Structure formats: structure tokens, C-alpha cells
């Protein structure tokens, strides 16, 4: 197998060293910047004219901004899955994936916070959340846990990076002046002494343990933004577990996609190997099964009873207006990728990549279907509102902002991958040395 062939330290460093963007890289970055700018322009319009530029109205008062928020929080959970859970489970194979996972986590959580501000009618009053805090509001809990999670994720990105920064700092002529300044600022104090390494390793282990309950909390609290209301489709005791299992699934899918793309465009075939796709594919199968299980609970139990307020909601999902999206999310977002990844041939990089894409796209629609249809099925009939209040399809400004935020996440990941090694260099060297000694 490829991964057993020993590599020299110099080869590892030159393979994993951050590279300047090629033509594709530049075009890709430019594309993301343009999408972000269009989103920024749409947000400027929203600030100027108010949320009236969206298609949100009194019934559907939360739309794709909020479903995007849930999506980002969900995908950010992957950081804790790959870095913490797999590390604590002693799954050594996941080491090369930790940095990708933490980069996804940090950038997704940044945009989760931003998109929530975008959704506010009075963003200039954001500070009231801190100056007039009401501790009984689930929003307050969400602010607390998301900022905690952001800090821990940032540390889990930064601390394992320190030994790599030492390597980067020892090759100043390979970096641009700007990057040298960043590397020195972040890692000049790191000498790699035994004591420093001991402190660092202990901190990482501690953070890995700490991040698991925090990760569970951020997505549970996010589910409570819905589950603490009375509305059909949200009023569910299943919601916390349902959200967390879905979050791990979409995070797993995103890692499959990122693995494939980085491997291909950065030539990392020696580091992200067939074995990683094989293992990650198995993990995703398990997560898809878990999420399906919670979906069965979430939809079939109420459907068995068909309580009156739920009836209309469930019918619209199963066979009505939202059925196309609903079955797409179930079949394309869970069942098909699960079947692809169940087979060894399906866990090769290319099919696994497509399975990951299906999981991620299905998951985005799934979040939309969790947020919006419920709001169109209130307890009292819809009355005394203009025609435009009775339906929801996002306006171009909403699409532009939502796509801009997705592009923003990808842009941060792209830039982080330009600045820092995508696969930890130091850990790859030590593991390679350990291999050779054996």
C-alpha cells in the first residue's frame, strides 16, 4: 500500500508546504470574492431598505438565513468529530484530516454568527444582547455556547499548528514577506522544547475532551430555538439528538468533499490515501444510519397519530408542496450516499466525493425544510394579510446573501489552506519516523 512507503522528511515538508495559488486557485478565489461582494451589496440594500427586500413576511419570518445558520452550526460540528472524538477513540488514521476539519469548523462558525446578524431587523442593537441579557432566552444560551465553541475550535486549530509554524519559520526564504510576518507573529515563541511540547499536548487533549460537550450543546441549543416553541414540526423532544446526528452526517460529508478536493489540487495522494476515504466512508455510513433513525422518529411517530395541527404540516412534507425537497433530502441526502459508501468500490475517492456532495446538498435542503414549512402551518388559519404573506420563496437579495455566506466559508478555508499546511507537517514527520523505526 502507498501509505506504508517511507518518505524522507524533506519530501514531506516540500509536499505539504503551503503553495502559491496556481491558475485554478486564483480563478477560484476570485470567483469566491465576487460571490461575496454580490452578497455584500445585497446586504447593503437590506440595511438601507430593511428586511422588506427579503421575501420574509409575518408568517414565514425565518427563512434561508436561519436555515443557513443551522447548516453552518451543523457543519462546524465536524471539528469536534474528527479532532476530538476520533482522536480520543485512538483512531490514528484521522490525524491528517484534523486540520481540514478544524478549518471547516472555524470558518463555518464565523459565518453562522454573521448570518444571524444579517437576519436581525436591528443589527446596530446587537450590543443589547450583552447589555440587556435575559438568561432565560435560548438565544442567550446560543450566544454563550457558540462563542465558547468558536474559541475552543480556534485553539484546536492553532495549538497543533505550533510545531508546523516552527518548520515554516525555519524556511523564511520559501515564504513571502507577509507570510513570514504572520508565521513569526503566531509562532515565534515556539522552540519545540520538551516542556513546550508537553504543555501543548496536554492542552490539546484537554480541549479535545472539553469540545465534545460544547459541540453537543451548540447544536442542541440551536435545535431548542425551534423545539422550545409550540409549533407543529418543531414541538419535539427528539430535536436535540435529531440535530446532532444530522450535524455529524453533514460534517462527515463535507470532510469527504474537502479531502477529495485538497488531495487532487494539492497533490496530497501520499497523505490522504485510499485508506482515509475507506475509513471516512464507513463513518459516514454509520452517521447516515443514525440520522435516518432519528428521521423515522421525527416524522413517523407524529404521522401515526396525525394530530390536527400536525396533519397539514406532515401532508405538505410527504405529498404536498414540500414533498420534492423532503424526499430529495431523505433519498439523495441520506439513502443514496449510504448505499454508495456501503461498498468498498464506493469508498474510493471519486465516488466517495460524490456521496459527500450529495450529503452536503441534501443537508442544506433539509435545514430549509426544518425551518420554513412549519412557519407556513400556524395553529390559527392565515387571515387578514396580503397575498404575498401566504408563501415564501427567497428574494434575489436573500439568495445573494446566503450564497455569499457559503462562498465566505469556502474563501476562509481556501485562504487558511494557502497560509497553513492542510495536512499537519510535524505529525506526518513523526509518524513517518515511527514507521521507519518499526
Amino acid at each position, binding site marked *: 500500500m502507498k501509505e506504508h512507503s517511507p518518505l524522507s522528511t524533506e519530501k514531506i515538508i516540500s509536499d505539504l508546504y503551503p503553495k502559491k495559488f496556481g491558475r485554478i486557485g486564483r480563478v477560484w478565489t476570485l470567483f469566491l470574492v465576487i460571490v461575496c461582494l454580490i452578497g455584500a451589496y445585497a446586504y447593503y440594500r437590506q440595511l438601507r431598505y430593511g428586511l422588506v427586500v427579503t421575501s420574509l413576511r409575518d408568517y414565514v419570518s425565518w427563512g434561508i438565513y436561519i436555515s443557513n445558520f443551522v447548516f453552518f452550526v451543523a457543519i462546524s460540528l465536524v471539528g469536534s468529530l474528527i479532532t476530538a472524538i476520533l482522536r480520543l477513540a485512538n483512531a490514528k488514521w484521522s490525524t491528517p484530516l484534523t486540520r481540514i476539519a478544524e478549518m471547516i469548523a472555524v470558518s463555518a462558525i464565523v459565518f453562522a454568527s454573521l448570518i444571524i446578524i444579517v437576519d436581525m431587523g436591528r443589527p446596530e442593537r446587537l450590543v443589547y444582547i450583552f447589555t440587556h*441579557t435575559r438568561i432565560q432566552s*435560548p438565544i442567550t444560551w446560543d450566544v454563550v455556547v457558540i462563542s465558547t465553541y468558536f474559541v475552543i475550535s480556534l485553539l484546536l486549530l492553532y495549538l497543533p499548528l505550533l510545531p508546523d509554524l516552527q518548520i515554516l519559520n525555519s524556511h523564511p526564504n520559501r515564504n513571502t514577506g507577509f507570510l513570514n510576518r504572520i508565521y513569526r507573529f503566531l509562532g515565534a515563541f515556539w522552540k519545540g522544547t520538551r516542556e513546550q511540547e508537553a504543555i501543548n499536548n496536554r492542552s490539546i487533549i484537554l480541549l479535545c475532551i472539553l469540545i465534545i460537550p460544547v459541540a453537543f450543546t451548540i447544536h442542541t441549543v440551536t435545535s431548542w430555538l425551534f423545539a422550545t416553541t409550540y409549533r407543529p414540526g418543531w414541538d419535539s423532544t427528539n430535536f436535540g439528538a435529531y440535530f446532532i446526528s444530522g450535524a455529524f452526517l453533514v460534517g462527515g460529508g463535507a470532510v469527504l468533499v474537502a479531502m477529495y478536493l485538497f488531495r487532487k489540487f494539492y497533490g496530497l495522494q501520499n497523505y490522504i490515501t485510499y485508506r482515509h476515504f475507506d475509513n471516512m466512508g464507513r463513518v459516514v455510513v454509520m452517521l447516515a444510519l443514525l440520522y435516518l433513525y432519528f428521521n423515522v422518529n421525527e416524522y413517523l411517530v407524529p404521522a401515526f397519530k396525525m394530530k390536527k395541527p400536525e396533519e397539514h404540516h406532515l401532508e405538505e412534507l410527504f405529498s404536498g408542496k414540500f414533498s420534492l425537497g423532503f424526499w430529495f433530502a431523505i433519498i439523495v441526502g441520506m439513502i443514496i450516499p449510504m448505499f454508495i459508501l456501503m461498498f468498498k468500490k464506493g469508498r474510493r475517492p471519486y465516488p466517495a466525493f460524490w456521496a459527500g456532495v450529495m450529503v452536503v446538498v441534501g443537508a442544506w435542503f433539509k435545514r430549509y425544510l426544518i425551518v420554513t414549512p412549519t412557519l407556513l402551518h400556524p395553529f390559527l388559519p392565515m387571515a387578514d394579510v396580503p397575498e404575498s404573506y401566504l408563501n415564501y420563496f427567497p428574494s434575489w437579495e436573500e439568495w445573494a446573501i446566503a450564497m455569499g455566506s457559503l462562498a465566505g466559508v469556502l474563501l476562509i478555508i481556501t485562504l487558511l489552506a494557502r497560509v497553513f499546511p492542510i495536512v499537519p507537517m510535524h505529525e506526518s514527520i513523526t509518524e513517518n519516523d515511527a514507521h521507519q523505526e518499526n
Partner: protein
Amino acid sequence: MEDNLSSRRAFIAGGLMAMLNPGCSSGENSIQPSGEKVKLLSVDGEEIEVDRAFLKPVPDLPPLSNAEERVGIKGKKFVMVIDLARCKNVGKCRESCNHAHALHPDHNWIKIYQMQDGDHTAPYWQPTTCMHCDSPPCVKVCPVDATFKREDGIVAIDSDRCIGCRFCMAACPYTTRVFNWEDPGVPEPLASQHYSCESSIPQKKGTVGKCDFCPDKVRKDELPHCVTACPNGVFFFGDIIEDSVTNGTETFRFSELIRDKAGYRLMEDLGTKPSVYYLPPVDRNFPFESGLPSTQETTTPH
């Protein structure tokens, strides 16, 4: 003896006014006593006599501070009773409410629902206001105390505090709340007046609005706009501590009305404990059909 005392009091009152209002005592504003005395009750409960010339009409009640508006009217617990047997979807309640609060044209704080509970049950018209729940789901979820429960039972909104997250709208099972998606277009001089949690005027872009039970009217011993506007006396407003409700022409003991007419509240099973009670649509004053837009002789507002 008595005359002496009263004239001294009048002098003190005049002196106080002069002190408080320096402009009065000089130039064209100086007031000459007319000699005609008026008996008044002082704030201490003492009976005093003041020269009529010193009396000036108070333009309005002094403005309340935000802190006072958040506490509410002491010793009161407001309640509303809506008699469904009298409603024929005229819509005057909605119209006067929209006008009085200078709402955005898309908005109605009062909504009139065409209800039919089951396949073979009778249809009826159901006006809804904010339920002013005693266990309000909207207040629970507000992260910044922009919507709050007052001592007099009213759930009010501070539009200067609201951050526009709309969690309260998701939380309210009665879908009573509306959002100012754009500038509500409040006319002057209302638009530039300072926002009051009691009048809910002026509505502001990017914040939530809803029925406020008109405490500004209640402070002036008047009834809410919907109560006085309804030609059929559907809405009864009152105080549960005084145990009385009135629609302006008829007044009932609240407890007797609820007992005799089997009053109930909406979605009792959710445990929100609304302050709005409904009387079932029995022995109706109007057939249901008379409220349908096609058969209604009076034009519906818009």
C-alpha cells in the same frame, strides 16, 4: 378664621406657581387675581381654594418614563371578553386599531378569522387581539427584555429595545405579532414623537409590533379603540380585580358573564393562560353568512 386660612393657602399656591414658572410673574404673562375662588383637592388630600385666574389647563398627562411603562398601572389586572355571538365580521375594530396606531398598510393587530372547528360544526367569526398571556411564550424567549409582562397583565413591546430577531413571532402560538419589514410610514407628527410602550407609537422599522390593550387610553379612563369602534358591542374590556367588564354601553360582572355564558380561552391546553376570554357563538345576533364579504352591506375597510 376660615377665610383667612383659605386666602393664605391661595397665596401659597400662587407663590409656588410663580416659583415653578418664573415666566408667569413678569411682563405680559403676569396674572391678576380675578377674585373668584375655586375649591380643589390637593395631592395630600386637603381641600384648598385657588383663584380661578391661577388655574391653567393641563394639556395632557405627564409623559411616563420607560421604567414606569414597564411596571404598568398599579392595582389593575386587565381582561378582555370577546362575544362571538355578536360578531359579523364588520371589521371596524381592526380599522380603528390600525388607524389609531398608525400601522403599516399590510398590518393588522386585530385579525378576524373565519373559523370552523370540525367538518360538521358551525362556522363563526373570531376576532383576535394579543392574548396578553399570564405565561407568555413570547416574553420567555426574548433575549433583550424588549417584550415584557407588566404588573397589570399587559404584555408590551419596547420598540427602542427590540433587536428584530423575531423569536417572539415564532414562539407565539396565536400568530398575533407582526414585523415592520420596512419603514411603517407613520405620518407626522406621530413619526417624530418619542416611542411609548403604552401607545406603541410610532412603530419602527426592523422591530416587532402587536396589540397593546391600549393602556394609554385606559390611563385616561377610556376604552381601547376596538371596544369603542365595534358597532355590535363584541369587545368587553375591564379589570379582573374589580370583576367588571364593559363594552361602553353594557357592563357585566366578569365572573358572572364567564359563568353564565360558558366563557373560554383559546388553546387552553398550551398553558399560556391568556387574558382574553371568548363567549361561544350561541344565540347569535347575526347569521354567520351575513359576515361573508359577498353578503356584507357595509364595505369592508381598506
